[in-house]
């Protein structure tokens, strides 16, 4: 109930005295109000800005933070006030809501910040007053659309497929995102080329060519070089049919695919050819067949797969459907009216071209769109007057819906621009995030190095200047290592270890190993490299598909020998080299080493198994940051 109603409730209850003499039954007992009745001023300190209000004001909305006992958690005994470490500017609006019962949305604030504040104070956004509700809704929708675009861009049509996807899925992906593989790109350009060829052929075959010997009339090129054009047409149609059938095969949902606009265009583009093949050389039917050939021009719409601008235009027109419909409707109305008027105005004139109302339609359209061909001209004075009114109103009617369409197009175009820009900025952002994460890992490894590897004492030795947070974080990571009995390392170290093992330890595979392995891996052996890696990859990539923030698992072997004193990392590598010579050393622990990676980076971390280099954003970053990695891996 609103604040006002709460104020009037005591009055309404008091007025119930009027029912008492009439009551048929006895009245129930009134509720006992245990709370203190006297009103007091509360002090609320929000990040240093002190607000004061009556307790009753806050009690008006008992299901919010300030109105319930939840605010007791924020009470500071020393200063006798409620302290909130939040934005005081926003709090002003929140408090005004309690005071006036109306929640206003400050237009200059970020919508997400506002939403967070509302969520903190337990206020549902639905009670925003009418004055601000529309603005709030618009901003919220805009924000959500933007976020949706972001997630779409992130999810990334550029991310490589999981390796266990069927060929069908890969095919579909190749069709939808041509830049994911060179084959797809090649196919894309080939189809584009053939569309262009087909359209140009259609155009050129109507151009009059020099007539062959023995004839006077000009012949269209299509008939002169009939065979050549037929062959070209056949080739194009073959390519298009092949493409269509491939798409049909690869589509995840065939029904949906067949209903989509592009597939309809595809079918319409190739149908005339097949119908032409099937149809006999009949005089009557060939007339209809010629009309069918017009549909071949629809091939030009196939370009919309290749051009984003065309798609935007189409999308704009679709979204402006109502405006366009209105335009059409009002034009039709005007045309009919003016045509009627002109017809009757010019009816008497001899030799008038306005022979009927439908004939006048042509004049009206030409005049309203200010074309003015002059093939139909009014002669009477009345006709001229109405003709001038017609042209004036034509300008108006057409000018009205056009700005709406233009603004729609502009909005959609800018959205697309933004999406593209975002994608371009992604790689910079991701690189930065990766650096930060790497910094964290390196700090931890450094900490371990300082402490010495192995089961040393837990007191921190010669630690550098680090914050309490870092200390605790490193201790936590260390606890995790101890729990799983594996150790963290970084990619350089890991790849080095891998290299040394692959060279040395294939031979020692036969020796028995005590492998304390992670739960995921059931294969035994010191370095059944490919199988384990593949398993890890599959795991990694499945986790990628499941949860983007998952931790990547990479394979390596970790050597732990109790007899050897604690060493630095570099000496451990040397250790590896030494150990490979004496395979009798039994203490190998096959480890699965986890490297925390930034979320969208996980596809990056998995060394590319797909044979085709992946062009685009990810490839570039991989090239810049991990060149040595890719080299090493591919050498396996």
């Amino acid at each position, binding site marked *: 109930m609103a604040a006002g109603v709460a104020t009037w409730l005591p009055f309404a209850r008091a007025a119930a*005295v*009027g029912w*008492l003499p009439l009551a*048929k039954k006895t009245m129930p007992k009134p509720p006992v109000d245990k709370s203190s009745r006297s009103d007091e001023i509360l002090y609320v300190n929000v990040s240093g800005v002190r607000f004061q209000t009556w307790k009753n004001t806050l009690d008006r909305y008992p299901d919010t933070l300030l109105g319930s006992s939840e605010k007791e958690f924020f009470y500071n005994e020393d200063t006798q006030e409620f302290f909130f470490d939040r934005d005081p500017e926003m709090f002003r609006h929140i408090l005004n809501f309690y005071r006036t019962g109306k929640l206003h949305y400050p237009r200059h604030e970020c919508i997400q910040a506002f939403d967070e504040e509302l969520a903190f104070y337990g206020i549902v956004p639905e009670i925003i007053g009418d004055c601000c509700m529309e603005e709030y809704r618009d901003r919220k929708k805009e924000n959500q659309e933007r976020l949706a675009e972001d997630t779409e861009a992130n999810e990334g049509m550029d991310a490589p497929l999981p390796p266990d996807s069927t060929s069908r899925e890969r095919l579909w992906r190749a069709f939808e995102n041509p830049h994911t593989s060179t084959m797809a790109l090649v196919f894309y350009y080939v189809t584009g080329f053939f569309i262009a060829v087909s359209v140009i052929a259609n155009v050129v075959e109507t151009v009059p060519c020099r007539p062959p010997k023995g004839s006077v009339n000009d012949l269209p090129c299509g008939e002169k070089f009939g065979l050549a054009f037929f062959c070209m047409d056949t080739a194009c149609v073959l390519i298009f049919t092949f493409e269509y059938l491939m798409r049909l095969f690869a589509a995840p949902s065939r029904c949906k695919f067949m209903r989509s606009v592009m597939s309809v265009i595809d079918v319409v583009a190739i149908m005339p050819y097949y119908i032409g093949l099937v149809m006999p050389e009949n005089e009557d039917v060939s007339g209809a067949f010629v009309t069918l050939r017009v549909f071949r021009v629809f091939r030009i719409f196939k370009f919309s797969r290749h051009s984003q601008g065309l798609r935007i235009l189409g999308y704009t027109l679709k979204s402006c459907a109502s405006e366009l419909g209105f335009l059409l409707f009002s034009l039709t*109305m005007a045309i009919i009216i003016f045509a009627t008027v002109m017809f009757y105005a010019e009816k008497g004139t001899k030799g008038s071209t306005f022979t009927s109302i439908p004939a006048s339609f042509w004049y009206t359209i030409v005049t309203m769109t200010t074309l003015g061909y002059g093939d139909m001209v009014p002669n009477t004075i009345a006709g001229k007057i109405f003709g001038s009114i017609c042209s004036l109103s034509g300008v108006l009617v057409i000018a009205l819906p056009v700005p709406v369409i233009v603004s729609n197009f502009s909005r959609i175009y800018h959205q697309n621009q933004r999406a593209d820009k975002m994608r371009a900025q992604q790689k910079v952002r991701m690189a930065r995030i990766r650096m930060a994460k790497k910094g964290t890992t390196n700090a931890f490894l450094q900490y371990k190095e300082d402490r010495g590897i192995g089961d040393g004492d837990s007191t921190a030795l010669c630690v550098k200047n680090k914050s309490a947070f870092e200390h605790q974080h490193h201790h936590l990571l260390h606890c995790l290592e101890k729990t799983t009995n594996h150790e963290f390392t970084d990619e350089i170290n890991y790849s080095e270890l891998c290299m040394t093992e692959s060279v040395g330890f294939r031979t020692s595979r036969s020796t028995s190993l005590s492998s304390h392995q992670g739960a995921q891996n059931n294969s035994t052996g010191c370095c059944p490299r490919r199988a384990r890696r593949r398993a890890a990859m599959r795991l990694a990539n499945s986790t990628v598909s499941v949860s983007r923030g998952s931790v990547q698992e990479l394979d390596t072997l970790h050597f732990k020998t109790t007899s050897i004193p604690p060493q630095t990392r570099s000496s451990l590598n040397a250790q590896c080299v030494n150990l490979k010579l004496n395979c009798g050393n039994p203490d190998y622990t096959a480890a699965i080493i986890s490297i925390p990676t930034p979320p969208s980076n996980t596809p990056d971390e998995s060394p590319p198994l797909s044979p085709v280099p992946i062009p685009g954003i990810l490839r570039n970053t991989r090239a810049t940051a991990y060149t040595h990695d890719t080299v090493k891996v591919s050498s396996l």
Partner: protein
Amino acid sequence: MLSLSLLLGVNTPLPHLFSLCKDDSSDSDLELSTVRHQPEGLDQLQAQTKFTRKELQSLYRGFKNECPSGLVDEETFKTIYSQFFPQGDATTYAHFLFNAFDTDRNGSIRFEDFVIGLSVLLRGSITEKLNWAFNLYDINKDGYVTKEEMLAIMQSIYDMMGRYTYPCVRDEAPSEHVDKFFQKMDKNRDGVVTIEEFIETCQKDENIMNSMQLFENVI
């Protein structure tokens, strides 16, 4: 048609240029809405009512918050009262209530009327409360409660219940209730209930006497 509308559109701004006096009426509208009422002083109200100073302060703050102009007109009153009875139609009863509070019959309730009425209802003696109730029932304030008046009041009370009740409110229920009431109250069977009959009967009825204490601690 479009051209005609165009011509019309051209026409309308012209009178505005010529008639400058058109704007005055909108100004006077503005003036009316800024009428305000300030209540009498706190001390006077304290003398007139049985509320403490703090209670009066609290009451006024709530009142002023809801009605910044200091006056409650009947429409606002009806809206406020209807919010407490969402299922039924409380406007008729609110109308009677409004008349009961608006003692000087000027069409709006000031803070003084409000607080004096509340004082009677919450802090008054039982006789005063019964007086107030009688005043409520007596629609034309002539000192007698007739059957028609009672029926109107009863109907308005049943209206507040709304349609969805158990058992269903029959159409005869208000008039039956009125008959029962008159049977009890109208001692001399003259078809009207006077204030003396009313108070006398109520004082003899234990239920009524007990329930009068119910709303003491509302504020």
